[in-house]
């Protein structure tokens, strides 16, 4: 996952792939990824009813398939490790997807990979580590919240949760881009925001264009939405609300008291931010900008 993130960003930065080609390749790679549940059935470690029960539980818990399968007594840790090993071996890489879609031929891909490896000075061991990394590591590798001091750790946690939620609720594989410090945030796009208040004050927001807004709304609501109406607005707002709710509950488990204010959906928005960050995130269906700042709007 993290390797896709690194290599994907390299291909974009070098102009080797266009953003829409990278998105397409990520979608394709995701669509043929061997799901752990399917693998568990194929290997006879779980039956279909058990896999279904884990999927159902995933709707209400922010946990991975394997963690829940162990908690629910369907798999042992050793069995899960065995499945993950098989999955890793069978997993199609982003490189394969890029070649399959005809964006690069084999020789160009090989050159791009070799150039990337050389430029990034990664050892084979580090290369392997990258393939196993998760969103927590990705946020620490790719984002820099140093200028906000101690609160930075909260920002890393928030972004990692946001990325996991994109996988969980939107069935997509997000790619986080480098964050930018911003004081005046201005967008002509849709902007959905919600304040988190309490022991820590945090402005959260997501900005996106019409097409991305509608697709995000469709995916979250699982409704046949054809235009941006009240239902679509409610859907995107509820997505942010659920992410923020999980964030507050996680914080409350660590003794940090947080509350949520109602979400606001608007267009053509300008706001002053105190130590604010704009974090571009590429989704399979377009880009969203995640905005995080101290205080409230």
């Amino acid at each position, binding site marked *: 996952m993290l390797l896709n993130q690194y290599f994907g960003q390299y291909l974009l930065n070098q102009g080797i792939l266009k953003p829409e080609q990278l998105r397409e390749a990520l979608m394709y790679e995701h669509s043929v990824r061997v799901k752990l549940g399917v693998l568990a059935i194929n290997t006879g470690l779980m039956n279909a009813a058990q896999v279904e029960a884990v999927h*159902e539980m995933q*709707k*209400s818990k922010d946990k991975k398939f394997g963690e829940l399968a162990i908690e629910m007594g369907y798999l042992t840790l050793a069995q899960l490790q065995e499945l993950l090993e098989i999955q890793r071996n069978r997993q199609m890489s982003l490189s394969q997807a890029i070649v399959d879609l005809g964006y690069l031929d084999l020789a160009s891909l090989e050159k791009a990979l070799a150039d990337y490896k050389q430029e990034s000075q990664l050892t084979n061991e580090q290369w392997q580590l990258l393939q196993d990394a998760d969103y927590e590591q990705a946020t620490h590798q790719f984002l820099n919240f140093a200028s906000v001091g101690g609160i930075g750790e909260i920002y890393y946690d928030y972004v990692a949760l946001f990325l996991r939620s994109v996988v969980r*609720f939107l069935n997509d594989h997000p790619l986080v881009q480098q964050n930018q410090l911003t004081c005046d945030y201005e967008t002509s796009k849709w902007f959905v925001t919600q304040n988190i208040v309490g022991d820590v004050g945090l402005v959260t927001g997501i900005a996106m264009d019409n097409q991305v807004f509608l697709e995000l709304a469709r995916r979250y*609501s699982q*409704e046949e939405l054809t235009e941006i109406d*009240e*239902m679509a607005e*409610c*859907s995107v*707002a*509820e997505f942010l*609300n*659920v992410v*923020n*709710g*999980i964030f*507050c*509950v996680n*914080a*409350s*488990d660590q003794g940090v*008291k*947080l*509350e*949520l*204010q*109602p979400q606001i959906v608007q267009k053509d928005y300008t706001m002053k931010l105190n130590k604010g960050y704009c974090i571009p995130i590429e989704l399979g269906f377009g880009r969203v900008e995640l905005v995080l700042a101290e205080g409230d709007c």
Partner: protein
Amino acid sequence: METQQGKVLICDDSLLVRKKLRDILTGIGCEVFEAQNGTEAVEVYQKSRPDLVFMDIVMPGTDGLEALKKLRAFDAEAKVIMLSSLGTSDKLIQALKYGAEDFIQKPYTVEQITQIVAKIAK
């Protein structure tokens, strides 16, 4: 049509949440009433006297915990299930203190909703 599972009031400011819950509840034979905020919930409750209320917490105007207090002041037997993304221990304790029957954290599953309705209907 005769309702088999009784009358249920949904109070949530989100049109999407109300629609999704309505689909589940009408599917199992409930008669459904809706409110968009706490003030409206109290009004609708007084008129329709539902058997069960699903109540969001974070809403503009009167929030769900305030509305819960008002409902229980009006009817000490009111059965209210808090259904919110904000399932922190503080909110949970407050809700139970004000007399909520139960607390479901969003995102909920269809089973969580139908099981609660079946429990109350008994």
